[in-house]
């Protein structure tokens, strides 16, 4: 007869699902490599699932989960050359201790609003840049630009998005 999940396991699944974007945000801030961060998120999910019995439901979930995410990040940095140790160990520890400046879901909503405000060509370019596997080199050919010119264009779009998102978030918090 198959085992049914315990109440704690059920709660943990809900909490893990609910906080996927926050966990992704945290891991990505320490490992900006997209594929590696995705792998570490999966590993973290698995660890959290396996540790369900250790979770105290009277305490907040996210700080507990981020502790395990941090250990998984450290393990990934130890074992992967993909990250190429972009950040030194002391800086990783310092970034890990920084508070999250906003919930990932709020950021996703602000991004949607700000993408809509971008000129169509800029929106197309930034979304093309974030398609899985896309590179500046490929996009430069696609958009008939030099890689350098395309990179400068992306920098400007990122700056515009940042300014717009900051405005959105501050007005939503006001």
């Amino acid at each position, binding site marked *: 007869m198959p085992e049914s999940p315990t109440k704690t396991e059920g709660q943990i699944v809900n909490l893990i699902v609910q906080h996927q974007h926050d966990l992704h945000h945290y891991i*990505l801030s320490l490992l900006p490599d997209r594929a590696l961060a995705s792998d570490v998120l*999966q590993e973290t999910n*698995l660890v959290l699932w396996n540790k369900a019995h250790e979770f105290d439901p009277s305490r907040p979930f996210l700080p507990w989960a981020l502790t395990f995410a941090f250990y998984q990040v450290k393990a990934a940095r130890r074992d992967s050359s993909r990250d190429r140790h972009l950040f030194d160990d002391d*800086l990783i520890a310092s970034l890990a201790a920084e508070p999250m400046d906003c919930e990932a879901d709020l950021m996703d909503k602000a*991004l949607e609003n700000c993408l809509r405000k971008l000129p169509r060509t800029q929106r197309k370019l930034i979304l093309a840049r974030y398609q*899985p596997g896309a590179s500046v080199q490929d996009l430069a050919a696609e958009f008939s630009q030099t890689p350098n010119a395309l990179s400068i264009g992306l920098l400007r779009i990122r700056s*515009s998005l940042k300014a717009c998102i900051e405005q959105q978030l501050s007005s939503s918090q006001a």
Partner: protein
Amino acid sequence: MTPDRTETLIHMMLDHSLSEAERIELNDLLRGSQAARESYLRAIAIHGALIRKCDAAPSSLPFAAPPVAAKPLRFPFKKLLAIAAGIVLMASVFFAKPGPRADITDGDFTVSPGATPLALGKIPARTPLSIASGSLTLTYPSGAQVLLEAPCHFQLDEKEALTLVHGRASVYAPPGAQGFVLDTPSGKFIDLGTRFGVAVGSDGSDAVILSEVFEGEVNIETPSEPMRLLRNGDSTAILSSGRSSRLVNSLDSSPIHLSRSASNAPADRKNLALGKPVFSPGYCVRPHGSIFPPDNLTDGRLNDSGVPGDWSFWLAPDYENGEFTVDLMQDEIISRISLQNTSNRFINDRGTENFAIEISSDNKSFTPLIVGTLPRIEPDKPEQAFPFHEFTFPETTARYVKFIVLSHYRHPTNPSHQHHSGGLSEIQIFR
């Protein structure tokens, strides 16, 4: 609005164009200023939101290089996925249009989480499809057959053709099925009545496509080179850079070989090592997606299979014996370890000869368990599965199992062959 230096360096980091001096500069800026760290965290938050948005939506690009290592989601979302899958299946049944046809006629596989469900019978056309584990056989009205090996992303776009975005395929076109086309991100393979294999992978940014003709002939058509005919025994790689591509007959000074058989082990629930994390002080990284990290040792994929950027076996760094440690995640009672050696895809210049295994419960203090020898993989039988070698011992308790290569194989006939190291294809651990 003028981006400041921190913002510029962060942008360069996100586009992978940071030099070592700039990396150090960015570290110093972030270390020295709270404002710089806040700016970085805001930029990363936007970066993450863009990734989530684009990961959730289907790609609008015409076959950009696929992600290097598409891994199945190891998380119990199965019930939710089953409901979502049911909705997608119903939609595909009710809104199906006449078009190209291929049927799954054989297979033991699982689809990737969130992907369109698949079962024996007709597959949906013009729909991105993927399998996360196992293999399946597609059969076309002409009799052409394609064996697909997970992890694999593919799509049925045209009659008597298949688009392979990522993964391995073996094609068989019997008499009457000549002209079957296998389309890939960097070129088309037009079958002239033959058996051939293709592996579509990536070096991290550009597609790397390997092919080998087992019988008969096949034409290769790429955007930037004249059509080339490959005959029985020929092999080639298509290397892409932007929109151009070139055909080469060897990779990293080694010949190109593809195994003919599907190479996924049936999931053995009793294998305590399956899917468990593996750590090693280093592993082999070479150009064109030749990267061999230690988690390949417990991924259930066997026989030196995989594709560029996502091979199924572990290799130590060049010229080193190497070692790795499997973390069983908790103390387990074990009494048997099963090992499958590697021959580095029949290049036959790497592999484990003598080894030692030690165990530990704290990853600090290790106790010797076994010393043994693995034979070299026979290089002349590419269609056969590699053998497993079993080592048994009295029941003992361990969480960490460390495998230390004491000596490794080198190229058998060419002592001056440039590369060599230890390596292993799979480790299985049982009670």
